[in-house]
């Protein structure tokens, strides 16, 4: 190789920030260019529905500072939508017609919130960008009644933030229990009780038949009656932003398809984060919307382009903080209905962990307030250490001693 290669990241979010730092740590010498369509550089997206929404200020919000970028030859271009990647000419073409040299490209275009047709206007919100979060925060005031459509992680975080700011919160979901699809019924019930304790109201187990937005409020109609709220926050998931990939001729499905190293159907183009449908060694092809996954994928791509081929094979990990309660999940996407659930601790007291066992090996874990169990579960999953359900459930057994036992046997 004669000249140093230029790497361009399309999308200036968590992948761009993690990748930049990892590339420099791994000794990648070429210029790095981050091209984003938002007006700002990379920021902590998880904070938009947590600290930033419930509190205030921008402490810890920004992921890259200008000084570091300058010292490390990382160029940030904001407000610059990308048209396509042209691999044949090694460039990235912007929608304004200009182009940027790009020997290597990482697509990290993320996703956009799903919307409901016809449900729009000043009183209707989604949360994806800093601007979205700041606009909603102004409406979370005492006396305001905030409707949240969707009782998943985002919706429940929004409800918690609304309560923290003294607003009323009412959560709508077709499921009879919040978070149960992601975390199991026991944790779902415990977290729902926590929200109810903090004054969140629930309208669950029924479909929404219609939503009417007027100048005075938003009316939601369910089989059992109508509810009027001042603001409606729609938290029903995201769609991957695949347009740039499609216009670049990449193979896409539910996201941009990549191999385990993050490489797309064009060898010089990688993809990571919410937009990437990666081929996971353990779970097969899957697109995951967790920030830690985006960061780990970026780290693997950085190693690969810096000359040490790497794959992303971690069990997917995520957390959510609601009020002062910390919840984490590991490997939950790979659970099968036949896996055995084992509970340790007391979930109803918001202090316990669920493990999923298959053929005597832990495959997944979810915890309320016991992140230390997840650290051990990661080792049990990675090393496929045989354990018994009664050991996991017995609080007299120190979980990390299950790891020591393996070392003795090895």
């Amino acid at each position, binding site marked *: 190789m004669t000249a140093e290669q230029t790497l361009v990241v399309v999308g200036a979010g968590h992948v761009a920030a993690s990748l930049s730092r990892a590339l420099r740590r791994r000794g990648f010498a070429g210029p790095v260019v981050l091209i984003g369509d938002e007006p700002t550089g990379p920021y902590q997206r998880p904070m938009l529905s947590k600290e930033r929404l419930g509190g205030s200020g921008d402490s810890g919000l920004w992921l890259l500072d200008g000084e570091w970028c300058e010292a490390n030859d990382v160029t940030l271009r904001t407000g610059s939508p990308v048209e396509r990647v042209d691999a044949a000419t090694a460039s990235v073409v912007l929608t304004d017609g200009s182009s940027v040299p790009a020997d290597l490209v990482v697509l990290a275009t993320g996703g956009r919130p799903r919307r409901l047709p016809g449900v729009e206007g000043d009183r209707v919100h989604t949360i994806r960008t800093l601007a979205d979060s700041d606009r909603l925060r102004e409406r979370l005031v005492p006396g305001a009644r905030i409707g949240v459509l969707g009782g998943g992680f985002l919706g429940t975080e929004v409800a918690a933030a609304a309560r*923290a700011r003294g607003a009323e919160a009412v959560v709508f979901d077709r499921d009879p229990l919040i978070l149960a699809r992601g975390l199991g019924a026991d944790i779902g019930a415990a977290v729902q009780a926590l929200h109810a304790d903090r004054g969140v109201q629930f309208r669950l187990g029924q479909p929404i038949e219609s939503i009417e937005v007027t100048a005075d409020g938003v009316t939601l109609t369910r089989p059992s009656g109508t509810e009027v709220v001042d603001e409606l926050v729609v938290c029903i998931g995201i769609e991957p932003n695949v347009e740039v990939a499609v216009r670049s001729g990449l193979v896409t499905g539910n996201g941009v398809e990549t191999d385990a190293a993050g490489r797309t159907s064009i060898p010089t183009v990688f993809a990571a984060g919410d937009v990437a449908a990666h081929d996971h060694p353990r779970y097969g092809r899957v697109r995951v919307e967790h920030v830690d996954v985006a960061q780990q994928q970026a780290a693997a791509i950085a190693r690969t382009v810096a000359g040490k081929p790497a794959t992303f094979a971690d069990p997917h990990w995520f957390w959510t903080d609601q009020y002062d309660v910390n919840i984490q999940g590991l490997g939950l996407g790979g659970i099968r209905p036949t896996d055995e659930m084992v509970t340790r601790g007391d979930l109803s007291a918001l202090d316990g962990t669920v493990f999923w066992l298959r053929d005597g090996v832990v495959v997944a874990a979810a915890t309320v307030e016991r*992140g*230390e169990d997840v*650290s*051990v579960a990661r080792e049990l999953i990675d090393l496929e250490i045989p354990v018994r359900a009664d050991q996991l459930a017995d609080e007299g057994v120190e979980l990390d001693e299950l790891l020591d036992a393996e070392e003795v046997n090895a």
Partner: protein
Amino acid sequence: MSEWVHVAELKELTRRKKKQVTVEGTPVALFLIDEEVFALDDVCVHKERFLSKGTVLDGQVICPGHQWKFDPRTGRPEDQPGCQATWPVMVTEEGAVLVGTTPVSPRESSGLEDVPAVTS
């Protein structure tokens, strides 16, 4: 001038490998890793969870809050901002664990500690 405070016995660390003690009013986490005792600020620079509730794996301390991994020797988290203060440790021949009253290296903010919620 750093003085030494007798905070624990080595045998208290042999099973669970970790223990919270208090030095000059500051919660300090002791870890026994490969037969060496380390002392770090117990309150995590990220979200103020206790490292002593965490896990020791492959010579690293993993915070239960958000799985940040700390080097017990330096107090630095892997790929994350901030730093835990580290404290001097001495183990006597009788197995008493002493911790100095002045940190060896200072605490550095992560910039991510919780901002007080606004309820007005």
